[in-house]
């Protein structure tokens, strides 16, 4: 008899223990991401698809120095530089990147390019949906990487797209 009672007691304790985990977690914030129904939440430092930034005047921060390409262990960055002119000013420095490609079939998201950049022009964004059906689509051009923004004409202080 006593053994049955003890058994029932033990069962109850075990159940209570088990359900205490269940119930305490029921009250917690959910961790599971409901991707793709809902947007994904990231840590700030998550290293996703790169973003090329603009400065406060809307000019490209990238001065085409090739240091990211030099730092890249996967050699996935390809740059062609050119000179800014008074008529066409793309970046604040003398030089800008006329072509800036990142090959995401090679990128290992190590972040060395971000570390190497002397002008904070490149950072990792939170984009991650890379999968294409065509491998060529994995080469992202500057237009795709560049932050959207407006360019301020310094002389007239006018904003234009």
């Amino acid at each position: 008899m006593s053994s049955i009672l003890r058994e029932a007691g033990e069962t109850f304790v075990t159940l209570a223990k088990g359900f205490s985990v269940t119930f305490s977690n029921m009250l917690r914030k959910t961790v599971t991401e409901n991707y793709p129904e809902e947007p994904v939440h990231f840590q700030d430092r998550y290293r996703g698809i790169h973003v090329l930034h603009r400065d406060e005047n809307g000019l490209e921060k990238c001065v085409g120095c090739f240091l990211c390409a030099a730092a890249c262990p996967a050699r996935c960055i390809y740059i062609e530089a050119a000179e800014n002119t008074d008529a066409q000013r793309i970046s604040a420095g003398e030089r800008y990147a006329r072509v800036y490609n990142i090959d995401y079939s090679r990128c290992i998201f190590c972040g060395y390019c971000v570390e190497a950049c002397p002008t904070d022009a490149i950072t990792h964004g939170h984009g991650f949906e890379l999968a294409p059906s065509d491998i060529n689509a994995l080469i992202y051009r500057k237009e795709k990487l560049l932050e959207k923004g407006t360019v301020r004409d310094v002389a007239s202080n006018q904003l234009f797209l």
Partner: protein
Amino acid sequence: MADSKDVTLKIDDRDVTVPPGTLVIEAARRMGIEVPSFCYYPGLSLQAACRMCLVEVERAPKLQTACTLVAMPGMVVRTNTEQVHQARKAMLEFLLANHPLDCPVCDKGGECELQDMAFTYGADKSRFAEEKRHRPERKWSEAVYYDAPRCILCFRCVRVCDEGMDVKALGVGQRGSQSVIIPNGEDHLDCEECGMCIDICPVGALTSGTYRYKTRPWEMKYVSTVCAHCSNGCKTTLSVRNNEILRANNRDLSGFNKEFLCVKGRFGFDFTSHPERLKLPLVRRNGHLEPASWEDAIAEASRRLAEVHKASGADSIGFIGSNRTTNEENYLLGRIARASIGTNNLDHHRTADYPSLIAALGEKAAAATVTMTQLYEADAVLLIGDDPTQQNPLVAWQIRAAIRHRGSRLYVINAKSIKLRRKAREFVEVSQGGEAAAVSWLSGSDETLDPGVAESLSALKSALEKENNVVVVFGAELTGAAVRDLVKFGASLPGQTRYMALGDYANSRGASDMGLLPHLLPGYAPLADVKAREKFGKVWGAKLTNKPGLDARGMLAAATSGKLRALYVVGANPVKTFGVNANERLGKLDLLIVHDLFLTETAKLADIVLPAAAAYEKDGSVTNTAGEVQLVRKGGDVMGTRSDFDILRIFSHQLAEHGLGQAIRLRTPEAAFDEIRQSVAGYDLSMAALLLGEAERTSPISTAGGQAKFDAPVGAIFSAHDTLFASGSLGRYCTTILSLPEAGPKTTPEAGAHS
């Protein structure tokens, strides 16, 4: 070997023995001790401006500049003490006080001496709180840009322009920390545009207009090759990215030219990417040149050439070669003409009389000609004709360096008051074209000269008689008998006399050496020499004819009169060079085949045009005007073109299928060069030295003996007198050079220079 006068001193506790007069910085470098410096540059005057080379010398009260301190016996120098380190750090702090930190943008970043020094010796922080002084960047010319804040005032550019180039286009303005480099035209440069100042600048203050902001040093591959323009054969390093040549400078300081390059060597590479470059073979159909495939074009060319051969015989076909193509290509062309077709109608645009010089020197030819380095070592130079500053810039550079460093004497005989006159001890001004008469007079003939000229010539003669070691440098003004007279005069001088003939183009000498001449086989073997004919006949698998061939002018005349039915032109523009009327098709030719980079006046008249690779796009060897052989290496690549070597080789196979000669089985330029080494007199050179990138001098010996003739027809040998800003047909496609104001009014390819 230690000389009794040698000086022994102690640097960093190690003894070193150096010749007297050696600077401490050089003595240290010899021991492998790096003493940092900016303003010190071997070969230029001393400046002691940068104060980076400060060293501690025992019993000297203060630190001394190693670049001006002459090594003395018993001197004790320390380069590695705390005081020296402090001094270097402080000097760099001063240099960086106004130097912008724009290394990521600066073209010099990655190969900058200041960057390296700051990294090795500098402090990581600056104590200067003041704002850096900024000055706007200046464009001095299409080729040279100056960014004043980056300048560290080492004055290397000023000195190289003044001493090295004798142009004096750069100077220093303002004083103290306000100093700036200023150009002679106030806001622009008016100079030879050699770009030496860019090359020698240790920082990014002077940058090249062609290379600016295009890429970075570590992104490119470097190909050490030989300049494609004049006949001096300067080594140049091509900086190549994505098969495109972006820069040319002699980065590794290899070759006899060291850091020297002229405007053509430094900026004249952009013809390779000119939009008018031919990239597809063209075949004339219904009167128009239309694109065709390589297979069709070569098949048609060889079929039609075989037809002409069958219908009109071998001597109805002529070959005009190039003075830009490699030795191997010239050798193959000679073989196709002489062995496959069986004609001696073979020539090129001759720009110097090498055969006469070699024949006149006879067995002494090797010992009596000088290399570019030996030119620098000469005690006296006699320059007859030519204008080396414009036509042979390295020769002028070597002569100036010899005068500056070694106190050599220069004597000039010229019809024009050329720039080198200011360095000359004696200058004899002769009438236009009077150089040959002057030489004839010097050799003791009874030539009647203007009394004034005769007087200055005899003064020159007595001056030369006092010299022990004379190098005679002469241009195309002396040909045939004049060259023989010159050698006769040289032999009459008491001292040693040696010679250098000046041609026009990168392989002018090679074309001559490889026998692109109607009367001479490769290695200057006369056609009349049965043994030589048998030797080459055996190598080439054919019996060679000794029937005299036509020279270039003869071929063009025969083409007009209808005697010549087919003409094969490789990398030459005879229509322009020899002034043929281009309005009508080349006489009554049945077939005109042209290999070229561009649609030149000659190519426009052709039936078949084959797009050739440029000198920077192929392997092989070239021989400079002094007879120094160097290897060229493939740098860039242009899709659709083929090297002349490939074209000729394929062509020989096609001709063999039509029953003409044997196919050429030499697969690569190296294999062809091996055959040249074995069969061409004077070309048995050290392959190891050549592969190391060195220049090896050929030693051809004329076997003609007393049979040698000095009767080259009038007008067969002439210089195009290209200036620094012209380079035959190629010069018209060098966009950067043509954009320079010194190049004169803008020329279109139509109205361009000579070929």
